[in-house]
């Protein structure tokens, strides 16, 4: 057994090993301040492969900002971030192939059809057979018959599904979702939950920022709670209950109301 393990690096090659063994997210001391307001303070994260993380916190706690930094959309004001072993500050372009982000906004062009949107992004990601891949995802998400309709004609739930397809085009190893359930109807919510669970089963690492605490604790393995830019809880989801999380969020809000300067 031991012999086989030590032989592994030579079979796969050094680069391969480094990549495969690299932790998806390693962040240290991440801070972000915008216009002299500290949004994130000193966040440390280490997220192993295939982990499903629920990111919880009140409005303004910094969840969206953290996800934007993890997706390399924004740069932190301080701290280091390594994604899959590559420094985000040094070569963000390389990392983006492995990351998908579903945001508040759909990031789609209203005047183009769902198909055109997906083919466009697929080409930017360098995917072979963009049209085929786009159709595959649209079918998976139940939108095959609306593929050629302009996005502006879609309901919120359908547009969100196209946005999810966009995030999955390049088969990212790390999926970041910023309140993707917001404004979704029940069938779309169920579809998305199923999809996330399935992706998790395929070994993807998922970080989900969500308002619905119970839903998040049900779906995820780990829960991280942010309050006023700091990480206050980081533990297994089944060791928490919704009440405890809510209490910690309320405590943080009370601190703020007391005028405590952090």
């Amino acid at each position, binding site marked *: 057994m031991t012999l086989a393990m030590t032989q592994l690096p030579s079979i796969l090659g050094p680069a391969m090993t480094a990549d495969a063994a690299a932790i998806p997210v390693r962040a240290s001391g991440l801070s972000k301040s915008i*216009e*002299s307001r500290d949004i994130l303070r000193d966040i440390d994260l280490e997220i192993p492969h295939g982990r499903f993380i629920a990111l919880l916190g009140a409005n303004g706690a910094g969840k969206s900002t953290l996800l934007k930094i993890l997706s390399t959309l924004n740069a932190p004001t301080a701290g280091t971030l390594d994604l899959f072993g590559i420094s985000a500050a040094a070569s963000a372009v390389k990392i983006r192939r492995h990351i998908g982000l579903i945001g508040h906004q759909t990031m789609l062009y209203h005047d183009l059809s769902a198909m055109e949107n997906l083919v466009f992004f697929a080409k930017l990601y360098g995917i072979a057979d963009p049209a085929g891949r786009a159709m595959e995802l649209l079918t998976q998400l139940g939108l095959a018959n609306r593929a050629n309709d302009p996005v502006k004609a879609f309901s919120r739930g359908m547009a969100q599904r196209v946005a999810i397809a966009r995030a999955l085009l390049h088969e990212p190893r790390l999926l970041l979702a910023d309140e993707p359930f917001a404004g979704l109807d029940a069938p779309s919510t169920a579809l998305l939950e199923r999809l996330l669970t399935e992706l998790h089963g395929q070994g993807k690492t998922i970080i989900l920022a969500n308002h619905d605490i119970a839903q998040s604790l049900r779906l995820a393995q780990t829960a991280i709670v942010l309050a006023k830019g700091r990480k206050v809880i980081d533990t297994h989801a089944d060791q928490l209950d919704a009440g405890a999380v809510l209490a910690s969020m309320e405590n943080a809000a009370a601190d703020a109301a007391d005028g405590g300067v952090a």
Partner: protein
Amino acid sequence: MNRKILSCAYWTVAALAFAGVMGLIYFWTPFAIDPNDGKPIIFQKILYFHLPVAINTFLACTVCFAGGIGYLVNRQTWWDDLAAAGAKVSVVLCTGVLLTGMLWAKGAWNVWWTWYSPRLTFSFMLWLLYVVYLIVRSSVEGSQRRAVVGAVYGLIAFLDIPLVYLSARLLPDQFHPADITLSPSMKLTLAASFVPITMIALGLVFLQYRLHRVQRGEVVGPLTLPGLGMRPSLTGGAA
């Protein structure tokens, strides 16, 4: 207290130097003689202000450029304050260039304004560039965004200056100033006049810089050169 003493001393020296140069120009420096008709050119003495002010305008523009680049690379707010200070002073000085240029035009060609003098046109375009800088700064919301937009504009505007100069020279040049050779005493006066003007320019930049820093809540010590000797800010924000 230290700062006030140093500041007083500095401005006193500048004022004395200025007065000294004025006296020099008025009493000592000879008039330039018009090569065509042998008569003294009175308004030529404006050169002793026009040229130093013009050179210092470029100095201020360079400060603005450096501040912009520094901010884009470093993202520390003092670079942005330096850039803004440089731009403000360059507008003030450029207004001086335009006014002295127009006085010269009035004296030499009896017109307050002409499009046929490349130097005048160039000064005007330069003035426009940096006035727009100031307006852009006041139109953008958010101090970080404002700093970035200002930095990019300051950078591009500075790179534009040589092109503005070259294109101004393409314009018809009817009113070319008569070539005057400067006698040694005139050269001395010219060199001397650089002293007070440069002191005033640098002093203004520093004053503006200090004003911006204080507005941000940063403390600036008596001998603080931009970027050095920073004390922790009062607001606790990122420096």
